[in-house]
Protein backbone atom coordinates (compact mmCIF):
# COMPACT_ATOMS: atom_id res chain seq x y z
CA UNK A 1 0.00 0.00 0.00
CA UNK A 2 1.38 3.37 -1.06
CA UNK A 3 0.49 5.01 2.26
CA UNK A 4 2.45 2.43 4.27
CA UNK A 5 5.48 2.98 2.07
CA UNK A 6 5.16 6.74 2.46
CA UNK A 7 4.93 6.51 6.25
CA UNK A 8 7.91 4.19 6.39
CA UNK A 9 10.05 6.43 4.22
CA UNK A 10 8.99 9.60 6.06
CA UNK A 11 9.66 8.17 9.52
CA UNK A 12 12.72 6.10 8.72
CA UNK A 13 10.92 2.87 9.64
CA UNK A 14 11.79 -0.48 8.07
CA UNK A 15 8.09 -1.09 7.49
CA UNK A 16 4.69 0.23 8.53
CA UNK A 17 1.63 -1.93 8.96
CA UNK A 18 -1.72 -0.13 8.92
CA UNK A 19 -4.13 -1.96 11.17
CA UNK A 20 -7.07 0.44 11.23
CA UNK A 21 -8.50 3.11 8.99
CA UNK A 22 -11.82 4.85 9.66
CA UNK A 23 -13.45 8.08 8.56
CA UNK A 24 -13.76 10.66 11.34
CA UNK A 25 -16.32 13.38 11.64
CA UNK A 26 -14.66 16.56 10.47
CA UNK A 27 -15.07 19.82 8.67
CA UNK A 28 -17.15 20.29 5.55
CA UNK A 29 -14.10 21.09 3.47
CA UNK A 30 -11.67 18.41 4.64
CA UNK A 31 -11.79 14.70 5.27
CA UNK A 32 -10.17 13.25 8.37
CA UNK A 33 -9.28 9.58 8.71
CA UNK A 34 -8.30 7.82 11.90
CA UNK A 35 -5.24 5.73 11.21
CA UNK A 36 -3.78 3.03 13.47
CA UNK A 37 -0.34 1.91 12.41
CA UNK A 38 2.58 -0.17 13.69
CA UNK A 39 5.98 1.30 12.84
CA UNK A 40 8.96 -1.08 12.75
CA UNK A 41 11.82 1.15 13.82
CA UNK A 42 12.37 4.76 12.87
CA UNK A 43 11.38 7.88 14.79
CA UNK A 44 7.85 6.60 15.48
CA UNK A 45 8.74 3.00 16.32
CA UNK A 46 5.81 1.11 17.86
CA UNK A 47 2.03 1.49 17.69
CA UNK A 48 0.74 4.92 16.74
CA UNK A 49 -2.71 6.51 16.56
CA UNK A 50 -2.69 9.07 13.78
CA UNK A 51 -4.99 11.22 11.69
CA UNK A 52 -4.74 11.62 7.93
CA UNK A 53 -6.27 14.90 6.80
CA UNK A 54 -7.02 15.56 3.16
CA UNK A 55 -9.24 17.76 0.97
CA UNK A 56 -12.86 16.82 0.49
CA UNK A 57 -13.92 16.07 -3.07
CA UNK A 58 -14.93 19.70 -3.56
CA UNK A 59 -13.63 22.68 -1.64
CA UNK A 60 -13.84 26.44 -1.63
CA UNK A 61 -10.86 28.42 -2.77
CA UNK A 62 -10.23 30.33 0.46
CA UNK A 63 -8.77 27.35 2.31
CA UNK A 64 -5.05 26.52 2.56
CA UNK A 65 -3.49 23.49 0.91
CA UNK A 66 -2.64 20.61 3.22
CA UNK A 67 1.09 21.38 2.92
CA UNK A 68 0.43 24.97 3.96
CA UNK A 69 -1.80 23.85 6.82
CA UNK A 70 1.02 21.53 7.89
CA UNK A 71 3.43 24.49 8.06
CA UNK A 72 0.92 26.47 10.14
CA UNK A 73 0.47 23.52 12.50
CA UNK A 74 4.23 23.23 12.94
CA UNK A 75 4.50 26.92 13.78
CA UNK A 76 1.62 26.70 16.27
CA UNK A 77 2.99 23.52 17.86
CA UNK A 78 6.42 25.11 18.28
CA UNK A 79 4.83 28.16 19.97
CA UNK A 80 3.04 26.03 22.55
CA UNK A 81 -0.47 26.13 21.13
CA UNK A 82 -2.36 22.96 21.99
CA UNK A 83 -2.52 21.27 18.59
CA UNK A 84 -2.04 17.67 17.46
CA UNK A 85 1.64 17.20 16.69
CA UNK A 86 2.07 17.52 12.91
CA UNK A 87 4.24 14.70 11.56
CA UNK A 88 4.32 14.54 7.76
CA UNK A 89 2.71 16.04 4.67
CA UNK A 90 2.64 15.09 1.03
CA UNK A 91 1.46 16.86 -2.10
CA UNK A 92 1.82 13.61 -4.08
CA UNK A 93 -1.68 12.70 -5.24
CA UNK A 94 -0.66 9.19 -6.22
CA UNK A 95 -0.43 8.09 -2.57
CA UNK A 96 -3.94 8.86 -1.31
CA UNK A 97 -5.61 10.37 -4.33
CA UNK A 98 -5.24 13.89 -2.96
CA UNK A 99 -2.57 15.81 -1.00
CA UNK A 100 -2.68 15.06 2.73
CA UNK A 101 -1.03 15.64 6.08
CA UNK A 102 -0.46 13.26 8.97
CA UNK A 103 -0.73 14.28 12.62
CA UNK A 104 -1.06 12.55 15.95
CA UNK A 105 -4.55 11.56 16.98
CA UNK A 106 -5.80 13.30 20.12
CA UNK A 107 -8.70 12.17 22.28
CA UNK A 108 -11.72 14.36 22.79
CA UNK A 109 -14.99 15.51 21.30
CA UNK A 110 -15.54 18.50 19.03
CA UNK A 111 -19.29 18.21 18.41
CA UNK A 112 -20.49 21.74 19.17
CA UNK A 113 -24.14 20.95 19.88
CA UNK A 114 -23.08 18.22 22.25
CA UNK A 115 -20.56 20.41 24.05
CA UNK A 116 -22.80 23.45 24.42
CA UNK A 117 -25.74 21.41 25.67
CA UNK A 118 -23.79 19.23 28.11
CA UNK A 119 -24.91 20.36 31.57
CA UNK A 120 -22.24 18.19 33.16
CA UNK A 121 -19.64 20.57 31.73
CA UNK A 122 -21.26 23.68 33.23
CA UNK A 123 -18.88 23.90 36.21
CA UNK A 124 -15.86 23.55 33.91
CA UNK A 125 -16.96 25.97 31.18
CA UNK A 126 -15.51 29.20 32.65
CA UNK A 127 -12.11 27.53 32.98
CA UNK A 128 -12.39 26.13 29.47
CA UNK A 129 -13.23 29.60 28.13
CA UNK A 130 -10.25 31.06 30.02
CA UNK A 131 -7.97 28.40 28.58
CA UNK A 132 -9.26 29.06 25.08
CA UNK A 133 -8.49 32.75 25.56
CA UNK A 134 -4.94 31.78 26.50
CA UNK A 135 -4.68 29.48 23.46
CA UNK A 136 -5.85 32.23 21.12
CA UNK A 137 -3.34 34.63 22.64
CA UNK A 138 -0.54 32.13 21.94
CA UNK A 139 -1.66 31.85 18.31
CA UNK A 140 -1.59 35.64 18.05
CA UNK A 141 1.96 35.70 19.36
CA UNK A 142 3.04 34.40 15.93
CA UNK A 143 3.75 37.50 13.88
CA UNK A 144 5.31 38.31 10.53
CA UNK A 145 7.88 38.16 9.10
CA UNK A 146 8.05 34.37 9.17
CA UNK A 147 10.02 32.69 6.36
CA UNK A 148 8.31 29.37 7.14
CA UNK A 149 4.93 31.01 6.52
CA UNK A 150 5.97 33.07 3.50
CA UNK A 151 3.12 31.57 1.48
CA UNK A 152 0.57 33.55 3.50
CA UNK A 153 -0.61 36.72 1.78
CA UNK A 154 0.19 39.96 3.66
CA UNK A 155 -2.48 41.25 6.01
CA UNK A 156 -3.14 44.14 3.64
CA UNK A 157 -4.61 41.60 1.22
CA UNK A 158 -6.93 40.02 3.79
CA UNK A 159 -8.07 43.07 5.78
CA UNK A 160 -11.65 44.26 6.06
CA UNK A 161 -11.46 46.44 2.93
CA UNK A 162 -10.45 43.43 0.83
CA UNK A 163 -13.03 41.23 2.50
CA UNK A 164 -15.72 43.79 1.66
CA UNK A 165 -14.65 43.71 -1.98
CA UNK A 166 -14.84 39.91 -1.90
CA UNK A 167 -18.28 39.88 -0.26
CA UNK A 168 -19.68 42.24 -2.87
CA UNK A 169 -18.10 40.34 -5.74
CA UNK A 170 -19.75 37.19 -4.45
CA UNK A 171 -23.14 38.86 -4.04
CA UNK A 172 -22.86 40.18 -7.59
CA UNK A 173 -22.61 36.58 -8.78
CA UNK A 174 -25.28 35.25 -6.43
CA UNK A 175 -28.68 34.88 -8.11
CA UNK A 176 -30.74 36.07 -5.11
CA UNK A 177 -30.46 39.71 -3.90
CA UNK A 178 -29.49 39.90 -0.19
CA UNK A 179 -30.46 43.40 1.00
CA UNK A 180 -29.49 42.83 4.64
CA UNK A 181 -26.02 41.69 3.68
CA UNK A 182 -25.65 44.74 1.44
CA UNK A 183 -26.75 46.96 4.32
CA UNK A 184 -24.38 45.28 6.76
CA UNK A 185 -21.47 45.53 4.32
CA UNK A 186 -22.20 49.21 3.80
CA UNK A 187 -22.04 49.70 7.57
CA UNK A 188 -18.69 47.89 7.67
CA UNK A 189 -17.38 50.07 4.86
CA UNK A 190 -18.27 53.24 6.75
CA UNK A 191 -17.05 52.09 10.18
CA UNK A 192 -13.63 50.59 9.43
CA UNK A 193 -11.39 50.34 12.53
CA UNK A 194 -7.86 51.66 12.53
CA UNK A 195 -5.43 49.01 11.28
CA UNK A 196 -3.85 46.78 13.92
CA UNK A 197 -0.46 45.08 13.72
CA UNK A 198 -0.90 41.75 11.91
CA UNK A 199 -0.82 38.49 13.84
CA UNK A 200 -1.46 34.90 12.87
CA UNK A 201 -5.22 34.48 12.94
CA UNK A 202 -6.85 31.08 13.02
CA UNK A 203 -9.87 32.53 11.18
CA UNK A 204 -12.15 29.71 12.34
CA UNK A 205 -11.47 29.67 16.10
CA UNK A 206 -14.80 28.57 17.54
CA UNK A 207 -16.67 25.90 19.41
CA UNK A 208 -16.67 22.89 17.11
CA UNK A 209 -13.03 23.41 16.20
CA UNK A 210 -11.43 22.38 19.47
CA UNK A 211 -11.39 19.05 21.26
CA UNK A 212 -12.53 18.60 24.84
CA UNK A 213 -11.68 15.50 26.82
CA UNK A 214 -13.12 15.36 30.31
CA UNK A 215 -13.52 19.11 30.41
CA UNK A 216 -9.94 19.76 29.28
CA UNK A 217 -8.95 21.37 25.97
CA UNK A 218 -6.83 18.79 24.15
CA UNK A 219 -6.48 20.33 20.68
CA UNK A 220 -7.23 23.36 18.53
CA UNK A 221 -8.30 22.02 15.14
CA UNK A 222 -9.09 23.00 11.56
CA UNK A 223 -6.47 25.53 10.54
CA UNK A 224 -7.43 25.63 6.90
CA UNK A 225 -8.34 29.35 6.90
CA UNK A 226 -5.36 30.61 8.98
CA UNK A 227 -3.55 33.73 7.84
CA UNK A 228 -2.24 37.14 8.88
CA UNK A 229 -4.92 39.43 10.19
CA UNK A 230 -6.38 41.50 13.01
CA UNK A 231 -6.46 39.73 16.38
CA UNK A 232 -9.92 41.13 17.16
CA UNK A 233 -11.29 39.24 14.18
CA UNK A 234 -10.61 35.90 15.90
CA UNK A 235 -12.03 37.15 19.21
CA UNK A 236 -15.24 38.27 17.52
CA UNK A 237 -15.54 35.05 15.49
CA UNK A 238 -15.39 32.99 18.68
CA UNK A 239 -18.08 35.11 20.33
CA UNK A 240 -20.45 35.75 17.44
CA UNK A 241 -23.90 34.27 17.69
CA UNK A 242 -23.45 31.85 14.81
CA UNK A 243 -21.08 29.77 16.91
CA UNK A 244 -23.00 29.56 20.17
CA UNK A 245 -25.04 26.56 19.05
CA UNK A 246 -27.37 25.34 21.83
CA UNK A 247 -26.65 28.31 24.13
CA UNK A 248 -27.16 31.65 22.43
CA UNK A 249 -27.05 33.31 25.86
CA UNK A 250 -23.45 32.28 26.47
CA UNK A 251 -21.58 34.82 24.38
CA UNK A 252 -18.18 33.14 24.49
CA UNK A 253 -18.66 30.25 22.09
CA UNK A 254 -21.89 29.07 23.71
CA UNK A 255 -19.98 27.91 26.78
CA UNK A 256 -19.50 30.95 29.04
CA UNK A 257 -19.76 34.69 29.44
CA UNK A 258 -17.16 36.73 27.62
CA UNK A 259 -15.39 37.65 30.86
CA UNK A 260 -13.35 34.46 31.45
CA UNK A 261 -12.47 34.19 27.75
CA UNK A 262 -11.36 37.81 27.64
CA UNK A 263 -9.44 37.42 30.91
CA UNK A 264 -7.52 34.46 29.55
CA UNK A 265 -6.64 36.39 26.42
CA UNK A 266 -5.74 39.61 28.20
CA UNK A 267 -3.65 37.90 30.89
CA UNK A 268 -1.55 36.19 28.23
CA UNK A 269 -1.12 39.11 25.85
CA UNK A 270 -1.17 42.00 28.30
CA UNK A 271 -3.50 43.78 25.88
CA UNK A 272 -6.96 45.05 26.83
CA UNK A 273 -9.68 43.98 24.44
CA UNK A 274 -11.59 46.92 22.95
CA UNK A 275 -15.33 46.04 22.80
CA UNK A 276 -15.95 48.57 20.02
CA UNK A 277 -13.43 46.87 17.75
CA UNK A 278 -14.84 43.47 18.59
CA UNK A 279 -18.33 44.81 17.72
CA UNK A 280 -17.12 45.76 14.23
CA UNK A 281 -15.59 42.35 13.71
CA UNK A 282 -18.72 40.62 14.98
CA UNK A 283 -20.77 42.34 12.30
CA UNK A 284 -18.15 41.28 9.78
CA UNK A 285 -18.26 37.74 11.19
CA UNK A 286 -21.99 37.52 10.53
CA UNK A 287 -21.54 38.78 6.97
CA UNK A 288 -18.63 36.41 6.41
CA UNK A 289 -20.45 33.36 7.72
CA UNK A 290 -23.50 34.26 5.65
CA UNK A 291 -21.35 34.36 2.51
CA UNK A 292 -19.60 31.09 3.43
CA UNK A 293 -22.98 29.45 4.06
CA UNK A 294 -24.19 30.56 0.65
CA UNK A 295 -20.96 29.30 -0.92
CA UNK A 296 -21.44 25.94 0.77
CA UNK A 297 -24.89 25.81 -0.70
CA UNK A 298 -23.38 26.64 -4.10
CA UNK A 299 -21.34 23.45 -3.83
CA UNK A 300 -24.61 21.59 -3.64
CA UNK A 301 -26.27 23.69 -6.33
CA UNK A 302 -23.56 24.00 -8.96
CA UNK A 303 -20.26 22.36 -8.00
CA UNK A 304 -21.24 18.74 -8.42
CA UNK A 305 -21.64 17.89 -4.74
CA UNK A 306 -25.36 17.23 -4.19
CA UNK A 307 -25.78 17.01 -0.43
CA UNK A 308 -28.68 17.72 1.87
CA UNK A 309 -26.42 19.12 4.59
CA UNK A 310 -24.72 21.57 2.21
CA UNK A 311 -28.08 22.57 0.78
CA UNK A 312 -29.42 23.37 4.23
CA UNK A 313 -26.28 25.28 5.22
CA UNK A 314 -27.31 28.00 2.77
CA UNK A 315 -30.40 28.59 4.89
CA UNK A 316 -28.20 29.67 7.77
CA UNK A 317 -27.47 32.92 5.93
CA UNK A 318 -30.86 34.12 7.15
CA UNK A 319 -29.75 33.62 10.76
CA UNK A 320 -26.71 35.80 10.10
CA UNK A 321 -28.91 38.47 8.56
CA UNK A 322 -31.05 38.57 11.69
CA UNK A 323 -27.93 38.91 13.80
CA UNK A 324 -26.67 41.80 11.64
CA UNK A 325 -29.96 43.58 12.23
CA UNK A 326 -29.84 42.87 15.96
CA UNK A 327 -26.25 44.14 16.21
CA UNK A 328 -26.89 47.33 14.25
CA UNK A 329 -30.56 48.15 14.74
CA UNK A 330 -31.67 46.56 17.95
CA UNK A 331 -34.53 49.04 18.34
CA UNK A 332 -35.94 47.99 14.98
CA UNK A 333 -36.84 44.51 16.18
CA UNK A 334 -40.04 45.88 17.71
CA UNK A 335 -41.54 46.28 14.22
CA UNK A 336 -40.84 42.76 13.01
CA UNK A 337 -44.42 41.67 12.55
Amino acid at each position, binding site marked *: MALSHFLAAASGARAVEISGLEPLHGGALQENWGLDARFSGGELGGDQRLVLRTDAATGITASLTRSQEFAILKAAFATGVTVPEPLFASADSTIWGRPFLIMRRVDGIAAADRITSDAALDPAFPAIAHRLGCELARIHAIRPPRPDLAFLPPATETGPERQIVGFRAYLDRHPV*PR*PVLEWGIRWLETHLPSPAGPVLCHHDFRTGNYLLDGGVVTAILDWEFAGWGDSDEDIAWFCCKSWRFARLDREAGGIADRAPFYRGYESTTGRRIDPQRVHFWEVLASVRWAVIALQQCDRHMTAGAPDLDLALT*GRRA*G*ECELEILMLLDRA*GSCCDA
Partner: protein
Amino acid sequence: MRDLPSAAALLALGREVLAHELAPLLPEERRPDALLIARCMAIAEHEMATEEAPLRELRSLYGSDEEPEELLRRFARDLRIGAFEDREPAEPAARALLWRLTVARLRRSNPQFLAANGLR
Protein backbone atom coordinates in the same frame (compact mmCIF):
# COMPACT_ATOMS: atom_id res chain seq x y z
CA MET B 1 -37.16 36.38 -3.03
CA ARG B 2 -36.28 33.23 -1.14
CA ASP B 3 -33.06 31.36 -0.50
CA LEU B 4 -31.77 28.76 -2.92
CA PRO B 5 -32.29 25.92 -3.16
CA SER B 6 -35.95 26.61 -2.76
CA ALA B 7 -38.03 25.00 -0.04
CA ALA B 8 -39.59 22.88 -2.73
CA ALA B 9 -36.17 21.73 -3.97
CA LEU B 10 -35.07 20.94 -0.39
CA LEU B 11 -38.18 18.89 0.15
CA ALA B 12 -37.55 17.03 -3.08
CA LEU B 13 -33.96 16.29 -2.03
CA GLY B 14 -34.99 15.15 1.45
CA ARG B 15 -37.72 13.02 -0.02
CA GLU B 16 -35.22 11.32 -2.34
CA VAL B 17 -32.91 10.49 0.58
CA LEU B 18 -35.83 9.21 2.64
CA ALA B 19 -37.33 7.07 -0.09
CA HIS B 20 -34.19 5.67 -1.69
CA GLU B 21 -31.56 5.62 1.07
CA LEU B 22 -33.33 5.39 4.43
CA ALA B 23 -36.44 3.40 3.59
CA PRO B 24 -34.47 0.35 2.37
CA LEU B 25 -32.68 0.25 5.74
CA LEU B 26 -35.94 0.05 7.71
CA PRO B 27 -37.61 -3.21 8.72
CA GLU B 28 -39.90 -4.29 5.91
CA GLU B 29 -43.05 -3.65 7.93
CA ARG B 30 -42.14 0.03 8.42
CA ARG B 31 -41.20 0.83 4.82
CA PRO B 32 -44.75 1.80 3.83
CA ASP B 33 -44.67 4.42 6.61
CA ALA B 34 -41.51 5.92 5.19
CA LEU B 35 -43.05 6.05 1.74
CA LEU B 36 -46.08 7.78 3.19
CA ILE B 37 -43.87 10.43 4.75
CA ALA B 38 -42.17 10.87 1.39
CA ARG B 39 -45.56 11.41 -0.17
CA CYS B 40 -46.46 14.03 2.47
CA MET B 41 -43.22 15.81 1.67
CA ALA B 42 -44.10 15.79 -2.01
CA ILE B 43 -47.45 17.46 -1.29
CA ALA B 44 -45.83 20.11 0.91
CA GLU B 45 -43.17 20.58 -1.77
CA HIS B 46 -45.77 21.61 -4.31
CA GLU B 47 -47.61 23.87 -1.91
CA MET B 48 -44.46 25.68 -0.80
CA ALA B 49 -43.42 26.25 -4.39
CA THR B 50 -46.34 28.67 -4.73
CA GLU B 51 -45.75 30.66 -1.52
CA GLU B 52 -44.78 34.32 -1.92
CA ALA B 53 -42.58 36.58 0.21
CA PRO B 54 -44.15 39.73 1.69
CA LEU B 55 -43.20 42.47 -0.78
CA ARG B 56 -45.99 45.00 -0.44
CA GLU B 57 -43.74 47.37 1.56
CA LEU B 58 -41.07 47.15 -1.10
CA ARG B 59 -43.53 48.36 -3.70
CA SER B 60 -44.62 51.10 -1.32
CA LEU B 61 -41.03 52.22 -0.71
CA TYR B 62 -40.42 52.72 -4.42
CA GLY B 63 -43.96 53.63 -5.42
CA SER B 64 -43.59 51.14 -8.20
CA ASP B 65 -45.30 48.00 -9.45
CA GLU B 66 -42.12 46.56 -10.97
CA GLU B 67 -41.58 42.84 -10.70
CA PRO B 68 -40.70 41.81 -7.11
CA GLU B 69 -37.32 40.41 -8.09
CA GLU B 70 -36.32 43.59 -9.90
CA LEU B 71 -37.47 45.73 -6.96
CA LEU B 72 -35.46 43.63 -4.55
CA ARG B 73 -32.38 43.98 -6.73
CA ARG B 74 -32.90 47.72 -6.81
CA PHE B 75 -33.28 47.79 -3.02
CA ALA B 76 -30.05 45.85 -2.59
CA ARG B 77 -28.19 48.13 -5.00
CA ASP B 78 -29.46 51.22 -3.19
CA LEU B 79 -28.42 49.85 0.18
CA ARG B 80 -24.94 49.19 -1.15
CA ILE B 81 -24.42 52.86 -2.01
CA GLY B 82 -26.15 54.19 1.12
CA ALA B 83 -29.01 55.71 -0.86
CA PHE B 84 -31.33 55.85 2.15
CA GLU B 85 -28.84 57.16 4.70
CA ASP B 86 -29.92 60.29 6.58
CA ARG B 87 -33.13 60.50 4.55
CA GLU B 88 -36.49 60.71 6.27
CA PRO B 89 -38.74 58.81 5.96
CA ALA B 90 -36.86 56.55 3.55
CA GLU B 91 -34.20 55.35 6.02
CA PRO B 92 -36.56 54.06 8.75
CA ALA B 93 -38.79 52.59 6.05
CA ALA B 94 -35.82 50.75 4.55
CA ARG B 95 -34.81 49.41 7.97
CA ALA B 96 -38.33 48.26 8.70
CA LEU B 97 -38.36 46.48 5.37
CA LEU B 98 -35.06 44.76 6.14
CA TRP B 99 -36.58 43.44 9.36
CA ARG B 100 -39.73 42.26 7.63
CA LEU B 101 -37.83 40.47 4.88
CA THR B 102 -35.56 38.78 7.39
CA VAL B 103 -38.28 37.71 9.77
CA ALA B 104 -40.36 36.39 6.86
CA ARG B 105 -37.36 34.45 5.57
CA LEU B 106 -36.73 32.86 8.97
CA ARG B 107 -40.37 32.06 9.49
CA ARG B 108 -40.06 29.85 6.44
CA SER B 109 -36.68 28.31 7.12
CA ASN B 110 -35.94 28.48 10.85
CA PRO B 111 -38.77 29.67 13.14
CA GLN B 112 -36.95 28.13 16.12
CA PHE B 113 -34.09 30.59 15.63
CA LEU B 114 -36.53 33.47 15.56
CA ALA B 115 -38.08 32.28 18.81
CA ALA B 116 -34.66 31.85 20.42
CA ASN B 117 -34.03 35.52 19.66
CA GLY B 118 -37.32 36.61 21.18
CA LEU B 119 -39.07 37.06 17.84
CA ARG B 120 -41.83 35.20 16.08
